[in-house]
Each structure stands twice: as C-alpha cells, then as structure tokens.
C-alpha cells in the first residue's frame, strides 16, 4: 500500500512537473514587457540615430534565456529595406532578469533609405519554445529628403574633361610631329 502511495505520488509529481514546465518556459516571455523611447524619430538620409528599449520582467521568477531582436521595415510599399544595412548589431542575448528587474539596450542605427519606416524590438526565448514573441510599440521613423541630382550640372563635366584631355593628346601629337 505504501509502495502504491509512493508510486501515485511520483506520478502526480511527474504530471505536475510536466504541466508546470511549459508555464515556466513561457514565463520567460509572457511576463516580459518591452518599451521603447522615443516614439517617433525624424532624421535625414544617411543620418545616424539611436533609441533605447527597456525590457522588464513582471513575473515572480527569474526570466532567463531571452533574446532581443531589432527589426525595421518600410511603412510604404515599394521601398526595399535590408535591416542589416541599418544596424550591424541587431540581436542581443540578455542576462537573466530578476523579478521586477529590467535591462536597457541602446540601439544605434543609420538611415539608409528615405521615407516612413517602422522600428520595433521583439523579445523571444532562446529555447525556441512555440510562444509568441513580445514586441515593443512601433517607433515611427521619418527619413527626410531623398536627394536627387541636378542632372544639368554634370553636362559641363561630361563634356569638359574629355575635351580637355582630347586637346592635350592632340597637342602632344602635334608637338611630336613638329
């Protein structure tokens, strides 16, 4: 009877353990909050800028094995965005966060295209558990002034430089013959 009770307790413990295990993993992201500042950034094409994200553990246990990932996308159709060009360090592996603790990350970026862009930070567990990532609010990035060239200004160069070299070559040729 005692053996049966022990076996029963072991089974219950195993079931409870299995049931709690996903909760413990999910706690890594479910109780995490991500905020960003500022909410809106305006810059010029080629301009460098930075924003901060704060990741807070709102749960009652340590949040371990978290990864913060930066993403940027165009809010208007037709603009190709390669996030690697915007930031060379887009993935950060976070140290464990104690209950109520937080960490701040500064993300440095450069505006490679002009237009309207959305930037956000996603936090997900490194375990690869099938839980939705926690994302920050979107930062609205406005990259101004797509400079276009004054095409007319290049004509004197296009004509002048070859003409000067042609005349020089002709002069040398005439001098050699003379």
């Amino acid at each position, binding site marked *: 009877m005692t053996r049966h009770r022990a076996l029963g307790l072991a089974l219950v413990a195993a079931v409870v353990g299995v049931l709690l295990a996903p909760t413990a993993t999910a706690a890594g992201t479910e109780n995490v909050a991500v905020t960003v500042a500022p909410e809106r950034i305006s810059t010029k*094409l*080629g301009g*460098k800028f930075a924003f901060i994200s704060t990741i807070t553990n709102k749960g009652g246990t340590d949040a371990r094995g978290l990864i913060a990932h930066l993403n940027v996308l165009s809010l208007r159709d037709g603009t190709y965005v390669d996030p690697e*060009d915007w930031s*060379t360090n887009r993935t950060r592996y976070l140290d464990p966060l104690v209950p109520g603790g937080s960490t701040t990350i500064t993300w440095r970026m*450069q505006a*490679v*295209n*002009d237009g309207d862009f959305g930037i956000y930070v996603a936090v997900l567990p490194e375990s690869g558990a099938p839980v939705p990532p926690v994302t920050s609010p979107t930062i609205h990035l406005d990259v101004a002034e*797509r*400079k*276009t*060239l004054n*095409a007319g*200004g*290049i*004509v004197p*160069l*296009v*004509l002048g*430089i*070859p003409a000067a*070299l*042609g005349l*020089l*070559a002709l002069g*040398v*040729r005439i001098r*050699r013959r003379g």
Partner: protein
Amino acid sequence: MTAVAQTSDRTPAERSAPGWLVVLHQELHDLWLGGRGLVLSFAFSLLVGIIAYLVATNTDLNFLEQRESTSLTLQVAIAVGGLLTLLVAADAVSGERERGTLETLLLTPASRRELASGKLLAALSLWFAAFVITVPYVWFLGHGVGIVDEALVAGLAVGTLVAVFLASLGLLVSCFAASNRVSLSLSLFVLLAFLAPTQLPAGAQQAWAGDLLLRVNPLTAGERYVSKIVVNGHNWSEDISWLLSPVIGAVVFATAAVLVGGRYIRLRGGVSG
C-alpha cells in the same frame, strides 16, 4: 622603351639614379609623351563621364540613391582604371619583344628586376591619372550627401590595390607569353574571369560559396568594401576583412612580377624560352 638604351644621352643625375628609376622615367616618357597614356585617359574620361551622366539623368537609373550613384561610378572607375593598367603592363615585355626593342633594353645596365619594377610603376601611373579624372565626377555625385572624402579615400586605397594586382598580373603574363597577342588576350580573359562573380544573382552571392568567391577575388572584394563605405556608411574598420584579398593579391603578385617575372624578361617569349 627606346631611350633607356641610349646611355650616352642620359644626364649625370640619371646616371647616378637607381636603374628602376631610370626605367620608370623612360617608360613614363614613352607612355605619356608618346600619346598612348593620354588617348587611354581620354577614352576613360568618356566612359566615366557617360556613366556619371546616366546615373544622374536617366530616369530608369534615377531610383539610385545618391550614395549608390557615387559608389557605382567609383566602382566603374576602379574596374576600368585597373583594366588600363593591365593593358599597359600586358604589353610591357611582349610588346617590346615584337617591336624589336627588347634587345637594346636588355643591354642596359639595369637589372631584370629593375626593368620589371620600372615597367610596373609606369603602368600604375595610368591608374593614378584615371583616379584624378574620376575626382570631379565623384565630387559632383557625392557632395550633396557629404560622402566625397570617404568615397575618394576608399576609391584611392582600393583602386591602388586592384591596380597593383592587375598590373603585376599583366606584367607576369607579358614576361611569359609567347606573343603580344597572347599576352593581351590572356590578360583580358583573366580580367573577365575576375569580373564574372559580379554577375551572380543576389541569392548566390549571399550563400557561403558565393560569399567566399567574392571575398577571395581581389576585384569583387575591393569593390564590395567601397560599397560598404560609400553606400552603407560603415566605418573603415567594420568591413576591413574585405580588403584582405586585395592586399594579398597586390603584395603577392607584385613580388612575383618583380622577382619571378623579371627573370623571364628574355628575347624569346614562352616559358621554355
């Protein structure tokens, strides 16, 4: 090169100068006052001018951001400037053989290494002329976004490495080639082979094999570095690994051209000659 053989015409300063300097002086004289350098520079300025005009005006190409326009023009200048040095270097020894001027050149006190060094440096002068011609175009395309300084420094550094690599390659081929036609054809073929990876689709370039191919090729690696600096605004050290193959290519081939190629400056072309 005919004048170097006329030792009696040399000034006292030339007589005391190192052999490679005398060879360089005479090669530069032949190249630039002979008119060939100016004609090649004229053709180069036409080509770069057309490219710059197209990126500035053509509506199909106007989607290019100004940084990309500057980078494209600079990359064309580096590739074509390298081509010019390759052509001149590929003609340096085999051309002298066919014109019958190599024998008198070999009778001069200059050693074979000095001959090779002088010819190599003279070929490089075409790249520096090409770079000077490119400066106004780069200024026009890049001054609006404040990248002229970065573009010119990156272009000069990468272009010089590429030019040294290609000129050394051309000189090596010219030393070994049985005829001038073989030397020029082989050099151009090799250059085209080096440029071929640029035609790979973007997906293939990002795969590890494509990436490796781009990195080990001095031309593509150098141009990628320029693009990283000019288009992406990266700092100098961030993508410095892309300069590895241009540096190695320039050092190894220049050394080989002077040390090994110099030994094969002979009256008869071909390896067995």
